């Protein structure tokens, strides 16, 4: 497997990118380090959404809820209890996954748009609870000043922590993407009826996919707290869900890494164009229209198609 990794034509570019990302905090200004870390967190969230939407074919319209639940879980545990840090870090994704299980349990009974409508309603319910329950969640004030231990105290340290967790999650997600579970999920996306006919309990697998994806969304939520030291109710608002949906669309539904690209594009656009005009979404809109018309498989999908002849030959040699 190692040998194949090295021979793959992705190996060199990926190694170079990784080295740059690890060395960056030494040279780059604080602000850029922060933006990059934010891109990792957002990218992880978008990729977790793509697991259900792009690979699973389910209309998970309100995915940000699980991100928020993960973040709130860790923030609440660190501010209101004396439990050690790592308990909170593990609890965040777990509570997110349990929330995903409960909401998903109802949603998989429906299909397509009906699934989406129910999911958005149940998700909004959780947002409303967080938004209204002042005494517990801080309502629209959120929770600020979550204290982190010394090894995460500086921005550079948080950056490395976030980068490493992000990379671990990427590897795990890639393994799941390529696993029998992943390919079964993609088969369900393609044709759920046929899956039932070959002996697959479609609802169970869809629910499994949701639980795994919401777990990773919870991880992203935890990383957000590490980066920002605060949480707020907007993290569970449907607007963010729409934004990460667009990231998947921009990057490419059916690719694995597309959402990273989509997340980077949107975060960068908001940061750098948003500096000059509050109407940066206008530019996003134009880009989106262009992508839908000219790159229907997303930006990543487009590049993958370009590289296909080369990579196909290689995989045949690898067999």
């Amino acid at each position, binding site marked *: 497997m190692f040998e194949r990794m090295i021979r793959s034509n992705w190996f060199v570019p990926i190694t170079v990118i990784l080295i740059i990302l690890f060395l960056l905090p030494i040279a780059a200004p604080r602000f850029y380090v922060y933006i990059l870390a934010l891109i990792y967190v957002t990218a992880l969230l978008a990729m977790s959404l793509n697991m259900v939407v792009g690979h699973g074919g389910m209309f998970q319209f309100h995915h940000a809820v699980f991100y928020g639940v993960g973040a709130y879980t860790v923030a609440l545990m660190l501010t209101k209890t004396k439990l050690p840090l790592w308990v909170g870090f593990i609890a965040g994704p777990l509570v997110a996954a349990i929330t995903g299980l409960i909401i998903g349990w109802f949603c998989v009974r429906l299909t397509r748009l009906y699934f989406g409508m129910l999911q958005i309603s149940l998700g909004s319910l959780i947002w409303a609870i967080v938004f209204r329950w002042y005494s517990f969640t801080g309502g629209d004030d959120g929770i600020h000043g979550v204290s982190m231990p010394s090894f995460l105290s500086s921005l550079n340290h948080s950056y490395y922590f976030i980068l490493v967790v992000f990379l671990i999650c990427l590897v*795990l997600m890639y*393994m*799941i993407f*390529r*696993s*029998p*579970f*992943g*390919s*079964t999920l*993609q*088969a369900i*996306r*393609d*044709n759920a*009826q*046929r*899956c*039932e*006919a*070959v*002996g*697959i*309990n*479609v609802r169970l*697998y869809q629910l*499994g996919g949701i639980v*795994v994806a919401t777990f990773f969304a919870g991880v992203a939520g935890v990383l957000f707290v590490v980066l920002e030291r605060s949480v707020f109710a907007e993290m569970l608002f449907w607007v963010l869900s729409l934004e990460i949906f667009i990231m998947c669309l921009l990057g490419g539904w*059916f690719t694995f890494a597309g959402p990273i690209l989509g997340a980077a594009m949107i975060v960068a656009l908001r940061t750098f164009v948003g500096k000059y005009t509050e109407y940066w979404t206008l530019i996003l809109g134009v880009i989106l229209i262009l992508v839908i018309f000219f790159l229907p498989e997303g930006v990543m999908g487009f590049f993958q198609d370009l590289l296909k002849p080369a990579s*196909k030959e290689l995989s*045949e040699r690898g067999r």
Partner: protein
Amino acid sequence: MLQVEGVMKSFDGFMAVNGANLTVGKGEIVAVIGPNGAGKTTLFNLITGTLRRDRGRIVFKGEDISELPPYEICKRGISRSYQIVNIFPRLTVFGNVQVAVLSHQRKSSNLFRPAQNIAVEETRRILESVGLLNKEKSIAGSLSHGDQKILEIAIALGNEPELLILDEPTAGMSPEETSATMELVRRLAKTRGLTILFCEHDMDIVFSVAQSIMVMRYGQTIIQASPEEVRNNKEVQEAYLGGE
């Protein structure tokens, strides 16, 4: 092996299947014939659990399966192909069959092993037996119609069924493809010891391949008998074969 007894199914008051009876013995090749709208596809959907019957019993290997969901029925040994191509268009040809093989081997829920190393042998053997091995890397949606219909059968074989149900396996095929496909079906039945239940419009095929024929009209079973008897049956001749 399979008994269908007095099965009925209505859609909004329309009796699509109104008293169907069918017996399929182990190792037999049984055909269901009848004019368009006679309820053949609906009957197949009832047997495989895609639809739930209103009344009657469907018994497979001594067990009443009429209340089971499709995936449970599949696990008991019934696979099917569809009249209208029903594959996984974005997956490769290999991936299409592998999904079924993984499901059959109860390995679909494996999370961390790469799928490309699992069930490869079995999947490729099936592709070889239907003659699609040279196209295993093609995206299924890009195959010709004839190949997609063959892939239909290959997916169904992935579950190593005892009873294979083929809903018009040659629909939309050229005459050459049709005879090749029926030859394939006959060979599969022999080499794999499959029991086959199929429906088909081409009477030449039906009478040359089937060992037993069930005739349906208006959702009802008129008769199930050997090809000889069906050919000589007065009622069938009047109702269906045009009473030559």
